[in-house]
């Protein structure tokens, strides 16, 4: 080995292997490239679509942090929060995961879950710690969508839950708000979903949801009434205190039921509308759903007809008197009394309630067929009047006319004026009778009757106890009595011994032996 040791003077030829051979080390960057590509593919495949949701406010939403949840499963993250161009809201861009793609359909609902205290109760308490998050409720549609408008309030009932969606109308919202419970016999049967105020009609519209189990109980004649709060009734049975559930006490509540159980009305379908009464007792009050104003022109006095007096059709109330005032028709030459009434023909018909047109047509047709308005006395003690609408067979042809902007139903029939006319005519006739002469002859007749009675009295006194007739009569009666006695003894002896008639009356001797006794 020593001779092979190199020295400075004798350099050894180095072993040089052919260069530029591809080293197996290049597998490393290839692997790295595959790894990088795989990571990139994974990253992009997990990224789903981006959606833009419009909200009024971005309260509690943090870019890259606030999660988007669907039934507590993370389906995305808020990516950007920007003001809209009109500065009236915010546009939240959300990066969804790829699994979430099919959740993003046309009727998907998106809202922010934050701690809330409202009519529906306390919700979202967990967000106090975790921060707000965006909740996504998938819809039923299959049509894809990428731009949404977020809900400011979480929807009460998720889409697709089977049940009945109806509308309730009321004049007073009370404590009823979205989320308030609906009870049936104390069982939770549904919820109020929305509350909309209609300024033009002054009515409040509630969207209500009744769960599937209770939906068949909602029928056409079902009444809904408010049971919020405490109901105290003082009556002959003492005091009655009725308190609803604590939930209804806090959030307000509505209950429903069939009050006239005798009539089985058909069940309703989605979208049916009902009146929401303030209390159970109010359900018996008269309420019109969509009333029509009509003007009635009466020729006679309307004394006794007050505002809020009923308008009836054959005894069934269909409307209310709105007012009695000449202001409705100030220039009438006949000085007829204008009476403005509100009537609801749908109460006695099956007309659709969506618009007033069918009801107007119905009234016009009825007037052509002889429907007339008249005043009638409802209470003879107080002389309260009501307006009666009825068909009159012999009424002259007329139709609904328009006077001073009001539809006018013609009046006719037995109005009070006619009644008064008849009464005065009767009195006139009475007055025309010859009363004085009649009275004179009557008194003369009475005098002669008196004389006759005197004579009768005298005649009757002859038959008295001391009268001669009486003495004679009693003597005769005594003799008759004696005669009758002797006749009786005769008949007795003949009965015992019939032969005595021939042999005469026997002495007191015993009868011979062997003679058979009777």
């Amino acid at each position, binding site marked *: *080995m020593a001779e092979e*040791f190199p020295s400075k003077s004798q*350099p050894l030829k180095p072993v040089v292997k052919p260069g530029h051979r591809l080293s197996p080390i290049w597998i490393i960057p290839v692997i790295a490239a595959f*790894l990088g590509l795989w990571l990139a593919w994974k990253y992009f495949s997990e990224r789903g679509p981006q959606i833009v949701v419009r909200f009024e406010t971005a309260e509690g939403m943090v870019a890259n942090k606030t999660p988007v949840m669907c039934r507590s499963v993370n389906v995305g993250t808020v990516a950007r929060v920007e003001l809209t161009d009109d500065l009236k809201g915010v546009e939240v861009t959300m990066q969804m995961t790829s699994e979430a793609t099919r959740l993003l359909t046309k009727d998907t609902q998106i809202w922010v879950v934050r701690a809330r205290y409202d009519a529906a109760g306390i919700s979202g308490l967990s967000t106090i710690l975790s921060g707000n998050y965006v909740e996504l409720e998938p819809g039923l549609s299959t049509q894809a969508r990428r731009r949404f408008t977020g809900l400011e309030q979480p929807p009460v009932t998720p889409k697709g839950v089977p049940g009945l969606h109806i509308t309730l109308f009321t004049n007073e919202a009370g404590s009823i708000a979205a989320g308030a419970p609906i009870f049936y016999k104390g069982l939770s049967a549904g919820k109020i979903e929305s509350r909309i105020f209609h300024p033009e009609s002054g009515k409040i519209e509630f969207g209500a949801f009744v769960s599937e189990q209770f939906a068949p109980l909602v029928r056409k004649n079902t009444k809904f009434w408010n049971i919020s709060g405490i109901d105290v009734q003082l009556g002959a049975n003492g005091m009655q205190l009725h308190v609803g559930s604590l939930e209804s006490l806090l959030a307000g509540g509505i209950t429903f039921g069939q009050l006239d159980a005798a009539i089985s009305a058909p069940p309703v379908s989605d979208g049916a509308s009902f009146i929401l009464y303030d209390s159970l007792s109010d359900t018996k009050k008269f309420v019109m759903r969509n009333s029509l104003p009509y003007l009635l022109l009466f020729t006679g006095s309307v004394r006794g007809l007050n505002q809020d007096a009923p308008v009836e059709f054959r005894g069934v109330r269909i409307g209310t008197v709105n007012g009695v005032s000449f202001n409705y028709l100030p220039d009438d030459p006949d000085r007829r009394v204008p009476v403005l009434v509100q009537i609801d023909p749908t109460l006695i018909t099956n007309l659709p309630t969506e618009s007033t047109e069918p009801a107007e047509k119905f009234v016009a047709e009825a007037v052509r067929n002889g429907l007339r308005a008249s005043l009638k006395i409802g209470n003879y003690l107080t002389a309260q009047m009501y307006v009666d609408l009825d068909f009159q067979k012999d009424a002259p042809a007329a139709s609904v006319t328009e006077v001073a902007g009001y539809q006018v139903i013609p009046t006719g029939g037995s109005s009070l004026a006619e009644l008064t006319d008849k009464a005065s005519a009767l009195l006139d006739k009475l007055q025309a009778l010859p009363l004085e002469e009649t009275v004179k002859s009557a008194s003369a007749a009475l005098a002669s009757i008196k004389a006759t009675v005197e004579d009768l009295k005298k005649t009757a006194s002859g038959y008295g106890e001391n009268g001669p007739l009486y003495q004679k009569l009693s003597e005769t009666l005594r003799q008759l009595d004696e005669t009758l006695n002797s006749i009786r003894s005769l008949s007795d002896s003949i009965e015992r011994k019939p032969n005595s008639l021939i042999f005469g009356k026997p002495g007191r001797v015993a009868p011979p032996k062997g003679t058979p006794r009777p």
Partner: protein
Amino acid sequence: MKAFAPDSAAARGLALCHVCYLATPVNAGHCPRCGSRLHLRQRESLQRTWAFTIAAVVLYFPANLLPVLRVESFTGDYQNTILGGVAEFWQHGDYPVALIIFGASVVIPVLKIIAISALCLASRTGRRARTMTRIYRITELIGRWSMVDIFVVAILVGVVQLGSTLSIHPGAGALSFAAVVILTMFAAMSFDPRLIWDAAARAEDPPQL
């Protein structure tokens, strides 16, 4: 033909054993003392260095784009990339921490990749040999500091495991980042600085072939 610097051991056919550093004539093939194979220079030094460097460059992208840390707590999930973390520290006013992370995790790996690439190029041209040697020394020295991030992630993942209350998991970015750092270290290791001087000698006196 590969040319070595005229005053180098390689020019005289002497190789330094890679393991026991015994200078031995390269013809022997194996080190007479420890028996390991002898090479005049590190085998395929440039190819290896390039390969590691390119692999590091490729993985540098996922390392910075993917989250390195995923924090799961009852307040929700939360994950961050390296640059996202830097930005967050900066926004919170923790400028020194932000600078340290930025330096150790972003600047150093980039500088290292650039430096190794420069060295590889210099070992062909042979220019500025002294500067290049200094760069090589610095590269070897600072390389390990890039692992700061990985250590932090490793410690956090190990220590903070409070179940559903708070737990930290490494992200795909952490894995890529560790790979980048390791690959650049391998690249620096597989680079033979003597190649710079060989090239410098060639540049001064081009071999007659």
